[in-house]
């Protein structure tokens, strides 16, 4: 067993940013554990540009954005064990991992950073009826085949779900010569960003059908067609609206699930609002010394916010390592019925804090109020708020009380 001050699980954008920031804060003994052959996580395959506007003030491709962090980590000589799978994290901060090269490994960590990211929701998870032919892929899997392995997954494509990755794959497959028949979304609004509706779908005349979803998958060996039905406001299919689309490929972009198995093994409590770990303003879970940030905590709309959140996490983790504990965070953070994915779930009221959340449905001219007791700590009016966009509000310690819970109220 080896002691390491900070073990970081995951060498994607969150893990890399946390590692670099921890080193800059004087934590020398850091180890990144990464499942893939190289660090950078999902960015290896996100070859489109648009990353980095917030963090770097310029628009970069995914690999280029990742390379900045990988190079900095290398320059700082932060060790990263690749091809290494973490099997277990315990509440007393032992990490068990294995790799072909090193066999079983056990680390005793001063602090642990959970940065495992998320995985995609699959056909099974949304229970689409029908046969089980080849040709049904999640958007990320199709993206990996096309962008990393030079394997085209199909020629006549239907896309289910208007998540950003689905729309980006609609454009990508069109550029590679496929015919994309349409993007179908069960909700009455697009789940990805408006700019992607514009530049990935409208630019290529790919129709987006809202309140529609796949209700049957047909074909024996290879996908032959899908049936699409219109859905009503109660999310029920409307009989008689079924339409069959001949296609050889169905791409699913129906949501991401934070990969939290290790988080629960470690004994961290779940935040029912995010389904990720409940964390305080330092991104510390309910288990002292175990921190979480990035898409494993809550699914972000923009990569830049993942990096910034992981850097903020490093503040708390470094302080924990130096001082042995962090101040108690006894004030709860709650949202009203229009708020989803609210994090953190606890604050101290003694420190600056960034509160992140989304709205549950598209809203026009809404007001966001952050309230403690009878005091409105911050008020923001928004002409437009979309579930696709994460809202972040920064609060200063000087504006907060140390006695009252914080409520996020969105009214429209």
């Amino acid at each position, binding site marked *: 067993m080896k002691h390491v001050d900070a073990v970081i699980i995951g060498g994607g954008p969150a893990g890399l940013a946390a590692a670099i920031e921890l080193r800059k804060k004087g934590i020398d003994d850091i180890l990144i554990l990464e499942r893939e052959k190289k660090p950078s996580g999902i960015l*290896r395959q996100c*070859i*489109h*540009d*648009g990353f980095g*506007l917030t963090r770097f003030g310029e628009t*970069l*491709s*995914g*690999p*280029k954005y990742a*390379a900045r962090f990988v190079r900095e980590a290398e320059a700082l000589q932060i060790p990263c064990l690749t091809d290494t799978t973490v099997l277990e994290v315990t509440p007393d901060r032992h990490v068990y991992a294995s790799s072909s090269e090193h066999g079983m490994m056990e680390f005793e960590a001063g602090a642990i950073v959970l940065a495992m990211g998320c995985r995609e929701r699959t056909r099974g998870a949304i229970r689409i009826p029908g046969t089980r032919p080849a040709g049904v892929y999640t958007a990320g899997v199709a993206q990996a085949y*096309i*962008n*990393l*392995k*030079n394997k085209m997954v199909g020629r006549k494509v239907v896309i289910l779900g208007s998540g950003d990755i689905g729309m980006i794959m609609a454009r*990508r497959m069109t*550029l*590679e010569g496929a015919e994309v028949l349409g993007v179908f979304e069960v909700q009455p609004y697009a789940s990805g*960003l*408006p*700019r992607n*509706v*514009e*530049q990935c779908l409208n*630019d290529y005349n790919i129709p987006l059908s809202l309140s529609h979803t796949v209700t049957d998958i047909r074909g024996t060996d290879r996908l032959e067609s899908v049936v699409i039905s219109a859905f009503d406001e109660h999310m029920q299919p409307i009989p008689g609206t079924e339409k069959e689309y001949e296609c050889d490929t169905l791409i699913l972009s129906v949501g991401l699930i934070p990969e939290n198995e290790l988080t629960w093994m470690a004994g961290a409590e779940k935040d029912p609002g995010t389904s990720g770990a409940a964390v305080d303003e330092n991104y510390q879970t309910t288990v002292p010394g175990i921190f979480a940030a990035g898409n494993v905590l809550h699914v972000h*709309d*923009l990569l830049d916010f993942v990096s910034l959140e992981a850097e903020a996490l490093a503040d708390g983790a470094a302080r924990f390592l130096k001082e042995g504990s962090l101040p108690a965070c006894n004030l709860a953070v709650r949202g009203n019925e229009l708020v989803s994915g609210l994090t953190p779930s606890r604050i101290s009221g003694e420190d600056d804090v960034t509160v992140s959340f989304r709205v549950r449905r598209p809203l026009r001219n809404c007001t966001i109020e952050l309230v403690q007791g009878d005091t409105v700590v911050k008020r923001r009016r928004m002409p*437009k708020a979309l579930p696709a*966009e994460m809202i972040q509000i920064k609060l200063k310690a000087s504006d907060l009380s140390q006695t009252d819970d914080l409520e996020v109220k969105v009214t429209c």
Partner: protein
Amino acid sequence: MLREFTCIMCPQGCDISVEFEGATITSITGNKCAKGEAYVTQEIENPMRNIATSALVDGGDLPLASVRLTDVIPKDRIFDVMAEIRTVELSAPVHEGDIAIHDVLGLGVDVIVTKDVDAA
């Protein structure tokens, strides 16, 4: 003429309403910054886009290197440029910033590599 645009210059995706005659904008509302006006002006005159795709790599640890253009090109030339990119094969190792095609189709932009691919 009145037209609604969704700005693609940043993730804010502003809804921009524009009145214009010919290529002259007479009123513009909804953009939170100057990039929005520049984008809309361009859209009215001649829509331009960047593209990101991949180029083949011979002898690399991956078969492809991601590439993009150094600047935007006319939207109606996207598929011409895609076809041109398909004709090149780079030799590993390739490095981020390498020029895959200089002045592609005489459009005044280069195709550049955005990812390192080591030799296998």
